[in-house]
């Protein structure tokens, strides 16, 4: 892990608009507003949060599947949001996404060979033999073998299918991988295999990961840094150890306390939050977490908290830190 920034998200604002008759704007839901985040080369940065927090929108915007309303995304210094199509097509190969459900992210009508070779075919002209060899190399890299080349996604188990998706993502030697809940759809034992694979590949190829997940156990295991999101805003950002040792934001505390612990004797107090996550279309005033916060103060419903630096490399946005 280095301090060099590979991905710099600046003031990103993303809206989902519903259009009515004659393309008139009926409703605008602002999922992300003035969002800022930097990812360092070689690190695993996990983005955690619950439904409605905007983490998937974040990934989609970075990959340009969703056009943001405002802001910049600098990949290796270049703003990918303003690139023309041709240049971006090239850049895309350096930044690949792995989706949650491999049966949805692999075309069910294509065999493994075609699926993994699609990136190669799109960007380079290779003779068929070379193509097959390269695909075999990639399959071996992810723990599969050439035997699977003729299989279709539905012939594969969940774990195997996700490995194929990973092989496809690696085909163009990307620098950054956006992983959107890549193990949520898998069984526990398979998940373990895939996570070990992610970590090994990262060491081997020097990959940078943006890991989106709601599974805090996994996140604790693999992350270098963690960003906690609530309703489109980062409430806390820190290195893994610091955030687990001393979470500052009440939401982070509640979130971490609800990680089930595999020890029936442990009497860990679970902080149970009241109420539900509000809808992004109607966010609370001031600090967005205030209606559910166990430590809410008067100022919380009025003013948005500032970003406080708790210690080196650890930030939280909470009025409780104002006094310090």
């Amino acid at each position, binding site marked *: 892990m280095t301090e060099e920034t590979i991905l710099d998200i600046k003031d990103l604002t993303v809206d989902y608009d519903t259009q009515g008759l004659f393309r008139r704007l009926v409703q605008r839901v602002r999922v992300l507003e003035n969002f800022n985040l930097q990812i360092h080369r070689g690190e695993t940065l996990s983005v955690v949060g619950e439904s409605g927090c905007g983490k998937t929108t974040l990934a989609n915007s970075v990959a340009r599947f969703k056009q943001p309303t405002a802001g910049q995304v600098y990949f290796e210094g270049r703003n990918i949001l303003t690139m023309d199509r041709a240049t971006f097509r090239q850049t895309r190969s350096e930044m690949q996404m792995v989706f949650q459900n491999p049966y949805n992210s692999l075309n069910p009508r294509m065999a493994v060979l075609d699926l993994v070779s699609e990136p190669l075919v799109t960007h380079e002209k290779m003779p068929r033999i070379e193509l097959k060899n390269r695909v075999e190399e990639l399959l071996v890299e992810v723990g599969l073998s050439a035997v699977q080349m003729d299989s279709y996604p539905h012939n594969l188990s969940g774990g195997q299918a996700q490995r194929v998706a990973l092989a496809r993502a690696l085909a163009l030697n990307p620098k950054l991988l956006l992983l959107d809940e890549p193990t949520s759809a898998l069984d526990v034992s398979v998940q373990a295999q895939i996570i070990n694979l992610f*970590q090994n590949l990262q060491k081997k190829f020097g990959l940078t990961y943006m890991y989106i997940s709601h599974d805090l156990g996994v996140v604790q*295991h693999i992350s270098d840094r963690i960003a906690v999101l609530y309703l489109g805003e980062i409430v806390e950002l820190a290195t893994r150890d610091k955030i687990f040792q001393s979470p500052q934001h009440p939401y982070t505390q509640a979130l971490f306390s609800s990680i*089930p612990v595999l020890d029936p004797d442990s009497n860990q107090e679970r902080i149970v939050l009241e109420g539900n996550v509000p809808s992004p279309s109607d966010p609370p005033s001031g600090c967005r977490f205030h209606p559910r916060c166990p430590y809410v103060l008067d100022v919380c419903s009025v003013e948005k908290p500032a970003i406080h630096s708790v210690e080196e490399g650890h930030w939280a946005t909470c009025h409780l830190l104002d006094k310090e």
Partner: protein
Amino acid sequence: MSNETIIQIEDLHIEFPAPQGVVHAVGGINLEIKKGQIYGIVGESGCGKTVTGKAILQLVPPPGKIRGGQILFYGEDLVQKSEKEMQKLRGRKIAMVFQDPAAALNPLFTIGDQLMGIMIHHEIAEGDDLQYRAVEIMEDLGLPRPKDLLNVYPHQLSGGMQQRVMIAMALSAKPDLIIADEPTSALDVTIQSQLLDLLDRLRNERGITIILITHDLGVVSEICDELSTFYRGRIVEQGSVREIFQHTKHPYTKGLLGAVPNPQYLGQELKVIPGSVPINLEPIQGCCFASRCEYVMDGCRQSDPPFVALNEDHLTACYLYEEGISKGD
């Protein structure tokens, strides 16, 4: 928790015909659940846990069929009951809560209609009493503004709320037993906490027995009293949660626990069970886990290891522990 047995399953076999042969989804399981327990049925996909839950209600989806064994509910065999008799039990004595609330709630009817509909069907209440009872149930469950909820449609609610409504519906006829199939998988972690708390309270305050079908060992360690680990349609380990988590015996259960990221072992690779789950096309020869077990011995492939009691709350089927003595633990 009393000593009365509410559910006893004996030698249950469930089969599914498929183009390539017959799949043995459940191959002879035995378990006993006492009244007032929260019992965990744990396993990964394809292990037979969901179909077992459905079998209790005699709702095994065709073309699957129960091919043998008994499911005793307060001593009466449900497998032998007619459809009419089962309909009297379903919802009334035994209720089921499904994984996907959106699929279980009828989008065309309001919450109130669905709740009251159940009560009318099971003759719990009638007339003006209905609304009052419906509101009462929702209040008990801690649902906000229950009077307003009566007129709300399922799609207007969040996943967590829908799940709680489903539980309200399951409770409306005051059942003795609730079978919850992966009730928290689709939910956010903070909502999951709320739901687990709720299930715990139901058991403590009303003495309702809960069967929790899940793959999430964390959830099991939180609220379950006893559990059975399923693998390929068989139970490989069974007993109290404390015993099994602290003195895990069966290699598969060990593998499952090892695969979950544990803060104590940060930086190490997660323990992995090699290979993947094979399909049960013929009855399994020998131990169901033999093909992936790191402790496999010759005898394992020959015959099915017997279920052995290690102490009064811990049973397992593994040749490492024949006659209760561990070999090379």
